[in-house]
């Protein structure tokens, strides 16, 4: 096997579409930057606040977009390979948040219980304890959601391939069921780690801040989220390039019939993709809970973001890079808009989506149908 060296320039030359996307991104960034400059010209005296705003929204936006990418890549995989518009994906995300929360509390109480031998592992080192419990909760939520998603695919959706309308009804039904179960168990109000009194995590891990002086205070957790999201995204990227099953999935997104004809058990692949997708939703939900909390209403809100991101990135025959960049666009534009133009912070995403769809009906990477 030849040794392949990976340079960015080679990669861009191999993928002209990614190059084009980068052009788009740069142009959008330029437009946003020009708007911001106008804003600065209008009120120069808030230069100080401007820097703070830009840096804060940059950090927040990057963190949000990484996590949105993790969630949406699950949605994208399911839609791209199986052709199922998974309306329950937002509900998976929401349930993943609750699962992470519950597993975290359980793990923490196990470690803190003096009657159990686990107490000896950490003793009074609460920082290490809370970090361990957090990792356990994220992995546990991923596993639980992967099992739920795989079960739903195995028992119900498997019968309905080829009938997209029935799939919509089915996944909407599961969205209702999951939302209602969550609301019955945990109630309608928002749950976050901050309101749990004995939780150790809020003191050591989440509410810690990085103070650069001059009002530039960043929450450590969000900086951590950026690197977490980037590393998981990179892991996925490499996985899809280097492993056999990842290549099969990518080929299946391009042409599933051909992959089946070449001897792949595509049904097994569908189940795996469903488990992977819902596991990613659960992971991002569990990791995002310390920031946005867990609420049974999150399902619908984040479902719409998932729609928008996938469509911007290219829904039909699209690629991962498109989803990644569109998640960046959406997360950054949301955070920037909420700092600098609160009037349009709810519609900025839709404005960008409409503009991109009018220019390129297939999204950033998709074929124009």
């Amino acid at each position, binding site marked *: 096997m030849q040794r392949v060296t990976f340079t960015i320039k080679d990669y861009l030359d191999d993928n002209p579409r990614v190059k084009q996307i980068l052009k788009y991104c740069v142009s959008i960034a330029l437009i946003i930057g020009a708007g911001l400059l106008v804003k600065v010209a209008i009120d120069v005296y808030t230069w100080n606040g401007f820097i703070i705003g830009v840096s804060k929204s940059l950090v927040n936006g990057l963190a949000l977009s990484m996590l949105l990418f993790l969630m949406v890549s699950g949605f994208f995989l399911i839609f791209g390979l199986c052709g199922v518009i998974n*309306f329950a994906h937002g509900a998976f995300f929401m349930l993943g948040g609750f699962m992470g929360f519950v597993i975290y509390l359980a793990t923490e109480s196990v470690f803190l219980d003096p009657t159990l031998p686990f107490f000896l592992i950490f003793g009074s080192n609460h920082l290490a304890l809370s970090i361990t419990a957090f990792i356990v909760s994220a992995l546990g939520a991923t596993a639980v959601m992967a099992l739920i998603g795989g079960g739903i695919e195995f028992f*119900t959706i498997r*019968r*309905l391939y080829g*009938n997209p*309308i*029935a799939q*919509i*009804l*089915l996944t*909407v*039904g*599961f*969205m*209702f*069921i999951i*939302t*209602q*179960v969550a*609301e*019955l168990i945990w109630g309608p109000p928002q749950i976050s780690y901050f309101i749990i009194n004995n939780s150790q995590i809020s003191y050591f891990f989440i509410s810690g801040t990085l103070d650069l002086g001059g009002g530039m205070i960043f929450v450590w957790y969000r900086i951590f989220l950026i690197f977490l999201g980037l590393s998981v995204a990179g892991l996925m990227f490499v996985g899809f390039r280097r492993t056999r099953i990842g290549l099969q999935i990518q080929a299946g997104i391009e042409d599933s019939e051909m992959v089946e004809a070449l001897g792949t058990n595509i049904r097994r692949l569908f189940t795996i993709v469903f488990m992977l997708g819902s596991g990613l939703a659960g992971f991002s939900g569990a990791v995002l809970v310390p920031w946005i909390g867990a609420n049974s209403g999150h399902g*619908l809100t984040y479902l*719409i973001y998932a*729609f*928008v991101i996938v*469509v911007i990135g290219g*829904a*039909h025959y699209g690629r991962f890079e498109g989803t990644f960049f569109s998640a960046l666009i959406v997360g950054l534009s949301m955070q920037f808009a909420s700092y600098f133009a609160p*009037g*349009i912070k*709810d*519609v900025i995403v*839709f*404005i960008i*989506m*409409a503009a991109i*769809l*009018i220019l390129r*009906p*297939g999204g950033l990477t998709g074929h124009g*149908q």
Partner: protein
Amino acid sequence: MDNESNIKGRFRGSNRTISSFLSNNRTIIAAVAFLYLLPLGTAAATSPTRTLLSLMTQIMIFGLLAMSFDLQLGRSALLNFGQVALFGVGAYTMAFTLNSDILPPPFNLIAAIPFPLTIIVAMMIGGFLGLIMGLTTSRLRGTAFAFIALAIAEFIYNFFNENPAISGGETGLPVPIPGIIRTGPFYLFFVVIAFAFLAAFIGMVILYLKKRTERIGLILVTPVMVVLTTVLFVFGTNILGPLVVIVAFLLLILLYWFERSESISDPLQYSKTRTNGSEEERADILTDYMLPFAIVVLFLLGVGLAFGSNIAGLWALWAEGGSIFILKIPVQYYLVLTCITIIYYFTRRLLSSPFGRMITAVAQNEGRAEALGYNSYHAKIVVLFISGAIASLAGGLYAQYFGTIDPNSVLGVDLTINAMLYTIIGGLGTLFGPILGAGVVEYSTLNLNIIFQSIGLNPGLWLLGLGVVYVFIVLFMPHGIVGTIGKRSVSIKDKLRRFKLGNLEFGLKDADYWILGLLGTMGFFLLLTEDAGFTLIITGIFAFLDAFVLFVVYYFVLSTKDSRILLSITGIFGVLTVFGLLQMYNSILLLGGIWIPLLIITVISGVLTAYNLVLINRFRKEIRSYLAGGIRRIFRRGR
């Protein structure tokens, strides 16, 4: 048959066009006439029909929304995630035209438009919004269209959400009830329409019986007569009206016997009386003009007698009080019903026209349709305009019906998902399915918590129950309720055509299905309400079915020796009797006061129970041997 009537139509002139119109739309006319009949039962005092009417109005409003969604997705393959924008624009237009204080001065001139015209204004604005949705993307395909529509819907939602001065914000915008809805003449106008529909209905029945002169024709019409008389019994104010209607029905049976004797008495004379040619066309004055006329007049007179005091009471209330609240519910029901009838008929005609065929062709295979020379862009734009107008109409009716609107309730994304659910549950591309789906979902939404409470579960589980219902519907009826039944209906129709009971051949034709449609509409109503009056109706239906089975058994089955038929007949009969008894028990519990129908039903059920017992006693040997054989078969299979 149709060809023949067309040929006759050329000879007979214009009165044949009316009859062919009646014969071509039997189901619609029957169902709509029944729906128009219901609100006549509302009296000036509070009456239980009001709850039913308001539920029905709600269902029909959402049914209109779902119908417009179905027109896009089911007929022209346009998935529209921004459907709610069309609805919300209609609702806000209606609000602005009814209240001149909301909009700033130059725009509030729109409030000068009188009320029924504002519906048309709202439809126009919704249609133009649909047009804009279509024009923004030149190709109008797949996801791009769906999401640009979603973006437009979000812009509009955000615009209204950010401007609470004109949208009402969180608290909601009060929409005044238009003054004309509370006036007597407007109510009377709809009553006249109702009577016109009833006349069309009875005329349709007459024409049907004149064509269907086999024995089965009368047997099929009888349940309709029984149910209608029971409805008049329960809702009418006096016993005179139902009696006159019974006389009309007796005349109908007389007409049937005349026609029957004419058609089969002398086979050799058949060609003389029934030729297509003009030379021997014998105009029988009695059966062609006098009897039908008498039946129509008597039927309308009976209905008028039964509900006359209600109508007069409402009119008197208006005449005394000027403007009253109590007319609101029946008039709004009538308004929405009229709108949905017109829209349904219009859409049906549109879809069966050449243009509608072209839309379907474009939806099924756009490339091929374009290769055949059709302009798919044009077709989709027109569909978007029409369905935008329909959705906007639904929004306008919603605003004036509910009286308060806010951005979340008329422009929230969940309304689009709801419209999609109504459509998919009812059946995509079936046009009637969405209305049925809206009924099922709305009814479940309103009543699932009550049902859960009554069986001892947590009433908060209702949304969970709804989700489970969706999952089961999609697993067992993947094409929706109407769609799945429609897919299987070919074999069902074939079975019904060959269906036989003993010596009696049923042989259902296409022309007979309006009876099933009418009975289905009534059954839907029975589902919708736990009203005491409807308990009586269902009791009446069961009593009638008992009597009918008794008739069949008596005439046709006792002569056969096939124990299977005997057993199944006896089984059906027993189940029906048990149901009848249960219903009787229910009605005794619910209303001790109305004793005349109660007495009749009690007597009928008692006699039937006694007869059933006698029948079971007589066939006990056959039943025992059949049951023993069945059990033996089950055990053998188990081994």
